[in-house]
């Protein structure tokens, strides 16, 4: 995972670079929460471009971060989500709460 904070827009860009399963989620959660607490962003954008696999552990992970950012008055978006992962976000209703901001094939 890499994260960049854009001071001007108070936006935290989080690029997830690993497969998201129960094993990876715990560490990811810790690292993302650290960044959120440090920067107190107004907006968090999760970039899924390098995520080749995600199972239901990703749902809990993203919703948990959404709740946290929501509590400090911020918004959350996801981008570059491939079809197989988008299916999981749609099936679980996550896509209705957290906007996916682009369309990407495969």
């Amino acid at each position, binding site marked *: 995972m890499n994260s960049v904070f854009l001071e001007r827009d108070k936006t935290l860009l989080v690029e997830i670079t690993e497969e998201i399963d*129960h*094993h990876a989620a715990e560490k990811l959660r810790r690292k993302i929460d650290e960044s959120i607490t440090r920067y107190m962003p107004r907006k968090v954008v999760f970039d899924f471009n390098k995520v080749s*696999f995600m*199972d*239901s552990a990703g*749902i809990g992970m993203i919703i948990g971060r959404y709740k946290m950012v929501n509590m400090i008055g911020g918004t959350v978006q996801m981008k570059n989500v491939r079809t197989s992962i988008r299916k999981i976000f749609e099936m*679980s209703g996550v896509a209705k709460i957290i906007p996916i901001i682009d369309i*990407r*094939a*495969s």
Partner: protein
Amino acid sequence: MSGLYENEMKLEFVSKSNNEAFARIAVAAFASQLDPTIEELADIKTAISEAVTNCIIHGYENTKGIIKIVSKIFANTLEVEISDTGKGIENIELARKPLYTSKSNIERSGMGFTIMESFMDDVNIESVVGLGTKITMRKIIKKVDPQEEDKMLDVAELGGR
């Protein structure tokens, strides 16, 4: 029995979370001889990952146990049996319900069985409290006509991956 299926593999591994990736990749590699599409392969990997995660966090509750996978191929069907000898499921109906989880404190979404059911063609759960759980899943790999496959690959490439 052995005449019924064309190929079979067995795996046994310790219930450690870093084996989740190992299990799904191993089953996907076995399934690849059926020539699945990228999407079918992703479905299989996701379903396996859900079942193995359940063994680790529910069956064995993060203690050390053995997870067993038996996978078979019959014609164009992949069958995967994933079992543990952990604590078992008290109420299978409830466990299958979308969004139901007994572990909301660790951010589990309760979507595991729902995902297995929608990504595979058939999911069967057998469980005895105190003895363990066995999940049997089947997926039919559709035959793709080669011209259609070329078109799908073109689309996938245009999408950047």
